[in-house]
């Protein structure tokens, strides 16, 4: 559209957009790649080396002396340090301070006349002139070149052992009703504000625009007190799913009403007037004409509300319990950040499960999301 599009400057444009896209996607890509890596490799090398062979210092233990066999008057223990692996051993040792004292393939004197041989493929042989005593096998330190390994083990672990699976269900439990229930309530209100003349309408619209930006923080303490009071009065727990559904509905309504009112006010007046001439009431007009026509706006709001309730941490932390069948994904992830701070295989897999649903919604319904953003950009998120 601009004259510069044919000049050499366009190459600069291509390159700078490429750089920006890389900056914006690499962090997420790193998370995804890491979550699929073997956890031992993940702990010692960066995700950008995921495809190359890594060198690791490992510790193994030879079979216990009970496994020794007598051969040509000597006592021998054999086995393999790398069970079923394709790694290559380059060096080994028997003291933690000198883990790579001997090259693979050579024999090492480990005292008492015993010798230890570790080959490249991980097979080892301990030879002793006398019968070996004890029940514990010889510790062997070795350096191995490990080929890249990708696995779904991390996902299997977090889904079961870390409670991410249960939290996934909890998040769905919160998000689905909290998305659907407000839609009808908001739509009726929006229609009244858009097409039914009554005194005070302009003020009401102004109030709703104002409520769009009221910080959630203002609501937390009074509502917590209110919920505690209602819970005590009715003899039920204060933190329940019903409570959080209603809270999400209340917090989502200003955006819903605002978005839908703007959309409905933009519909052509003639449709409504001709229907009215035909004797249709406001109720009929709304249900039969406006509601179907407003589908794009309803979809926009539903996507917003779903992303917001799924991604929310604050409301869930205040209004929902922390039991296994109540803690949502975001809350679980914060807990894991505290308790498993260094276990990146757990954190990356958990985080990816947390963000996969919004990403699917995002990529499949992006059109509606953009439309909603353009219509409701007064809202502060």
């Amino acid at each position, binding site marked *: 559209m601009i*004259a510069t599009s044919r000049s050499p400057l366009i190459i600069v444009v291509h390159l700078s957009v490429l750089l920006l896209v890389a900056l914006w996607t690499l*962090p997420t890509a790193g998370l995804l790649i890491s979550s699929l890596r073997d956890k031992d490799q993940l702990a010692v090398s960066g995700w950008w080396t995921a495809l190359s062979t890594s060198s690791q210092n490992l510790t193994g233990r030879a079979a216990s002396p009970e496994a020794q066999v007598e051969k040509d008057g000597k006592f021998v223990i054999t086995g393999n340090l790398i069970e079923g692996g394709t790694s290559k051993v380059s060096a080994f040792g028997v003291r933690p301070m000198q883990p790579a004292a001997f090259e693979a393939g050579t024999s090492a004197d480990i005292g008492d006349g015993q010798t230890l041989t570790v080959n490249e493929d991980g097979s080892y042989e301990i030879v002793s002139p006398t019968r070996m005593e004890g029940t514990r096998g010889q510790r062997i330190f070795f350096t191995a070149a490990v080929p890249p390994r990708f696995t779904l083990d991390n996902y299997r672990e977090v889904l079961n052992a870390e409670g991410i699976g249960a939290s996934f269900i909890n998040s769905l439990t919160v998000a689905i009703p909290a998305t659907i229930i407000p839609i009808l309530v908001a739509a009726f209100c929006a229609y009244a504000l858009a097409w039914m003349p009554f005194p005070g309408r302009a003020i009401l619209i102004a109030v709703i625009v104002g409520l769009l930006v009221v910080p959630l923080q203002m609501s937390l*303490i009074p509502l917590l007190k209110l919920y505690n009071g209602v819970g005590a009065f009715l003899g039920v727990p204060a933190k329940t799913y019903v409570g959080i559904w209603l809270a999400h509905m209340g917090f989502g309504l200003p955006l819903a009403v605002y978005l839908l009112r703007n959309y409905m006010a933009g519909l052509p007046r003639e449709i409504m007037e001709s229907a009215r001439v035909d004797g249709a009431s406001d109720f009929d007009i709304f249900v039969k004409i406006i509601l179907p026509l407003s589908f794009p706006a309803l979809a926009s709001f539903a996507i917003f509300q779903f992303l917001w309730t799924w991604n929310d941490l604050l409301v869930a932390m205040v209004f929902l319990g922390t039991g296994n069948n109540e803690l949502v994904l975001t809350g679980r992830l914060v807990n894991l950040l505290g308790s498993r701070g260094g276990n990146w295989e757990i954190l990356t897999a958990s985080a990816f499960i947390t963000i996969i649903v919004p990403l699917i919604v995002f990529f499949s319904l992006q059109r509606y999301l953009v439309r909603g953003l353009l219509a409701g950009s007064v809202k502060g998120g």
Partner: protein
Amino acid sequence: MQQLLFAILTMVAGVLACVVYFFGTNWLLDKIFPSKGLTGPQASKNLRITNAIRPWLFMAPALFALGIYLVYPVFESVRLSLHDRSGQQFVGLSNFRWMLGDGEFRQSIFNNFLWLLVVPALSTFFGLVIAALTDRIWWGNIAKTLIFMPMAISFVGAAVIWKFVYDYRSEGSEQIGILNAIVVAMGGQPEAWMTIPFWNNFFLMVILIWIQTGFAMVILSAALRGIPEETIEAAVIDGANGFQIFFKIMVPQIWGTIAVVWTTITILVLKVFDIVLAMTNGQWQTQVLANLMFDWMFRGGGDFGRGASIAVVIMVLVIPIMIWNIRNATKEMER
């Protein structure tokens, strides 16, 4: 699974209840004040009455929910901010006086101020630049989608993603965080980025900028496309170069949209909570108002007075933007 079923049942019940309410009240209204079949003054009188009542029937559930969840809490929070920790004893302005002397609060205000200066400005700037650049290349839409994507990721998810970027291993061992790996590759020392006071705030801000740039880009891209072609063609004929066209012709025409994006992100920044909680929980001098408020809400069994007074401070900071928004919306409706 059982609770998911329960959720779906509740959802169906909730929607059904709405349908019954709206249909029922509407039917009742027409029953009590019939206008069909009647003629003369009675019919027009009934019609007037139903027309006056019906909007309120339509709005009642929404207004009720808004009243309980947003309007009442605003007043209640202001009231609580003037009371002690349990909300029983009136203490005047002593919560606010406590604030002024509290080091953590002053730290939070200072940090929030930094956030306010940096995040909206950089998000809007990157959004504008990316919107302008991607409009000129054939794969612009793909690029936009990828940059927009972090919008869908939760703040907590984003915190984990970036914590991994910032990960620190002691010097000499292999760095698995990409930032430290780059620093080491360039011959520097690895750093525990989160523990460097003052600068760690900026490492946290990067996360929010990363999320919000997509939002700014989408809105500004639409605004850029709305600019009349003639103004740009005229500038081209007059011999303006690309930069001049961008800064002197295009940007001035979308000031209104830039302001909307800026204020929207500003409000988000005032409420920033999840990122700080997940990354540092306010340690190493990264505390912000929303996290401090949450802290006081539960600290030592919960100090509702101090918590509410911090919420009131956030509210006061939001009010100018609120007024500006209401003015704009009213102006738009009058047009």
